[in-house]
């Protein structure tokens, strides 16, 4: 399935970039820098970085042959991007720490290579909840750090870019909630990044003990340095992980709002293992970035475990959001409910790749995957590849469904009969289409912020269309 379309409809055709294979990763890990990290770290960690680098060298950028026709990294030009050599491992005592968002139980705030804040409120601290930088945890509790980093299960072994992060990470945060602690207020992790020419390679680890419950909000946005820079001053790279363990009977909700700048190249890996009767909820919103390649791996290991994943993409201009989601049913009577929705303006592209695997042991699985797109521009392109691989037919349900269509004329007509002007009606329908993620964000302030971001993006798109 050849793909010879490139940046269709580019407003002004810049000087042609050198011809590259779509799978070519232009970022070269700085091997000396990684060795310098390794030299200062415990042996097990140095070995882990070197093993990851060896994997990185062996692997193709996309190891799943199903998806090789739909990989396109040509928008990334990372040859001059350099990893921050030595990001801080703790807040700078000389500067005031940033304040926790209202209603949060804990807050980790990263601004480029600084730790701008790291707070756990008294109630959470008393319950045993800990939030450490990865550096901090290695210093404070090396045995736990070792267990969390080196069990080999938390990042996909076949993924080249995940192995890049494992080899070269220069920042990280670890959230741990002990057994039976039920935290009713969310933990907020904020990453502000995007200064031209920089790379931040990060890992986020979340561990919920048996019977615990918690929610995490991940905010990904542009730093002051990135926001202040002139457009086109250079790309930046952000790689991140979310390495999640949900214990027996535990319940975790993760909401992520990604609104990086237009020159940001973003690679995300999220991998969760869910124990017996554990529950995991994802609400993921992708708005920003020039090129975003994200992968989620859900592993339903325990009997009766479940995952609910709702993901939205709102693309505009020439953004490419390349999102893959793997859900592997291993235990008995597990439930997977996955929904991806995309709205595309301008020459935006989304690739939605979903894979459900039902292993032979997974008797009684209920698994559904839905991928729905709205192309609102003739130059937009939406690709959906919802796949199933099934070794156990004794399922409650194994299905996927997908649709692409314009704004529903009947809905539009209905709203207009109620006196709503057509432009507003369109906006309501589109924002309503994306609402399932907004509604799942646990913090009111974050919910409002996401709604505002979506609305602003819509308004900007309309303004561009009017100007054109």
């Amino acid at each position, binding site marked *: 399935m050849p793909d010879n379309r490139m940046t269709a409809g580019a407003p002004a055709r810049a000087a042609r970039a050198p011809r590259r294979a779509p799978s070519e990763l232009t970022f070269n890990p700085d091997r000396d820098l990684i060795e310098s990290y390794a030299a200062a770290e415990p042996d097990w960690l140095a070995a882990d970085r070197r093993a990851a680098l060896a994997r990185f060298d062996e692997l193709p950028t996309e190891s799943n042959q199903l998806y090789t026709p739909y990989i396109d990294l040509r928008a990334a030009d990372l040859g001059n991007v350099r990893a921050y050599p030595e990001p801080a491992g703790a807040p700078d005592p000389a500067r005031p720490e940033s304040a926790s968002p209202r209603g949060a139980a804990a807050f980790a705030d990263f601004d480029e290579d600084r730790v701008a804040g790291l707070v756990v409120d008294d109630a959470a601290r008393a319950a045993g909840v800990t939030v450490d930088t990865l550096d901090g945890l290695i210093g404070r509790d090396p045995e736990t750090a070792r267990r969390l980093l080196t069990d080999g299960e938390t990042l996909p072994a076949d993924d080249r870019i995940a192995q890049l992060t494992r080899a070269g990470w220069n920042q990280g945060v670890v959230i741990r909630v002990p057994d039976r602690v039920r935290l009713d207020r969310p933990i907020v992790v904020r990453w502000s990044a995007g200064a031209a020419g920089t790379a931040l390679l990060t890992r986020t680890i979340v561990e919920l003990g048996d019977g615990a419950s918690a929610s995490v909000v991940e905010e990904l946005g542009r730093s002051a340095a990135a926001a202040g820079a002139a457009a086109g001053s250079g790309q930046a790279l952000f790689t991140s992980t979310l390495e999640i363990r949900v214990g027996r009977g535990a319940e975790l909700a993760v909401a992520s709002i990604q609104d990086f700048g237009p020159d940001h190249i973003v690679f995300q890996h999220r991998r969760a293992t869910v124990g017996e009767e554990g529950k995991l909820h994802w609400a993921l919103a992708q708005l920003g970035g020039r090129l975003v390649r994200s992968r989620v791996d859900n592993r339903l290991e325990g009997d009766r475990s479940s995952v609910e994943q709702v993901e939205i993409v709102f693309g505009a201009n020439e953004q490419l959001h390349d999102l893959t989601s793997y859900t592997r049913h291993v235990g008995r009577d597990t439930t997977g409910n996955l929904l991806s929705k995309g709205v595309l303006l301008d020459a935006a592209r989304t690739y939605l790749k979903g894979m459900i695997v039902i292993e032979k042991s997974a008797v009684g699985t209920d698994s559904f995957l839905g991928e729905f797109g709205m192309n609102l521009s003739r130059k937009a392109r939406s690709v959906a590849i*919802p796949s199933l691989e099934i070794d156990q037919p004794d399922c409650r349900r194994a299905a996927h469904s997908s649709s692409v269509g314009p704004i529903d004329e009947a809905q539009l007509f209905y709203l207009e009969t109620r006196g709503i002007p057509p432009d507003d009606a369109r906006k309501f329908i589109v924002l309503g289409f994306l609402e399932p993620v907004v509604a799942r964000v646990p913090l009111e302030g974050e919910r409002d912020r996401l709604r505002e971001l979506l609305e602003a993006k819509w308004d900007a798109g309309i303004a561009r269309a009017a100007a054109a």
Partner: protein
Amino acid sequence: MTATREIVTDRREEFAFHDDIVYLRETKRGLTRETVEEISGFKEEPDWMLQLRLRAYDHFLQRPMPTWTDGLDRIDFDKIVYYRKPSEREEKSWDDVPDQIKATFERLGIPEAERKFLAGVGAQYDSEVVYHSVREELSKIGVVFMGMDQGLKEYPDIVRKYFGTVVPAEDNKFSALNSAVWSGGSFVYVPKGVEVPLPLQAYFRINGENTGQFERTLIVVDEGAKVHYIEGCTAPIYATDSLHAAVVEVVALPGSKVRYTTIQNWSNDVYNLVTKRAHAYENATVEWIDANTGSRKTVKFPSIYLRGPNATADIISVAVAGKGQHQDTGAKAIHLAPNTRSRIVSKSVSKDGGRATYRGQLKVSPGATNVVASVRCDALMLDDISRSDTYPYIDIQEDDTTMTHEATVGKVSADQVFYLMSRGLTENEATNLIVQGFLEVFTKELPMEYAIEFNRLVKLEMEGSLG
């Protein structure tokens, strides 16, 4: 009671034999540039065809073996005989066919079938059409139905105009192989406005250990014409792997209607790697009705390129994967023009450790406005040692496409089996009935005789698994 029914009911063992045919001509095992030249020379082909073959051969060598489906690396191209000609010329009359070959076809029931309802018969014995007849009335209305080699001789202009335009040699490794060494297959031309009243039907058959089968079919249906072409296969069983790499090209000119029905039942040692594609022009309708029950491995995705406004594509793909089989099948609908419609329905059954894979593509290209498309794939798994995969690719590059896709995988419902058993059916009969019902979307599109055959074939497969 017809002989055609018996082919697929309970006589397959009889076909697991090897006829000691004296081949009049054959190439040496293995594929070289000389083999390609030799084949073209045997056939006294025009130079352009030789050049096409040689270009295809070069491409075949350069093209890497596909790795997105497994097991193809087992094919040993050096062990295959690329061309065999069992009799000297194409026969017009049944009486002229050599006795030994005739005996084989008698077993396959061809004369019987012909007398019953066939408009024409093209039977393929190894690599050449040896028996061929076109009914008088078809000739009268100008319909051409003959072997591809003969077509190249008698209708060089039509063949040259369309050959390789729907499936270029460079399309994939196996279309390159076919283009280099093709032999046999059918050539059909239906003139403007002609509706062919009865289905055109061809039987194909592989014989000879390690004989490759590279038939090439070209169907050109002129404006406003209408035709139904039926292809069915049986093959004798051998221990070593056989390769079947066919190419089928269909050109549906404006306003025409083409239906192409296949029941593929190769023996379980055959690699069946087929490229089937149609171009549908303005207001044309193309339908692929495709069933795969045989072969060790089938890789086949009947495709329709909707090139003219208001063209319609309808694909029904059915696969049954039993022990040791992998049916890697599906469909592709590529929308290139406005107001085009497509529907894909896929049904697969996997059992006894078989693997059924649906792989499909639905693409709406820029400029193809107001497209309506639907894809539905359902899979039935009869046990937990089998496997079922679904890999649909949906690529939409317009803003007013209406596309829906649904897929489900399940097992035979215990409730349904229980209900049927309470009505006096055995468990086998109940399961068989449910599977037949599951596949009915396919069966009901077949001519009645074929529908009966197909249901018997499924029943046979089911008995093999349950008995």
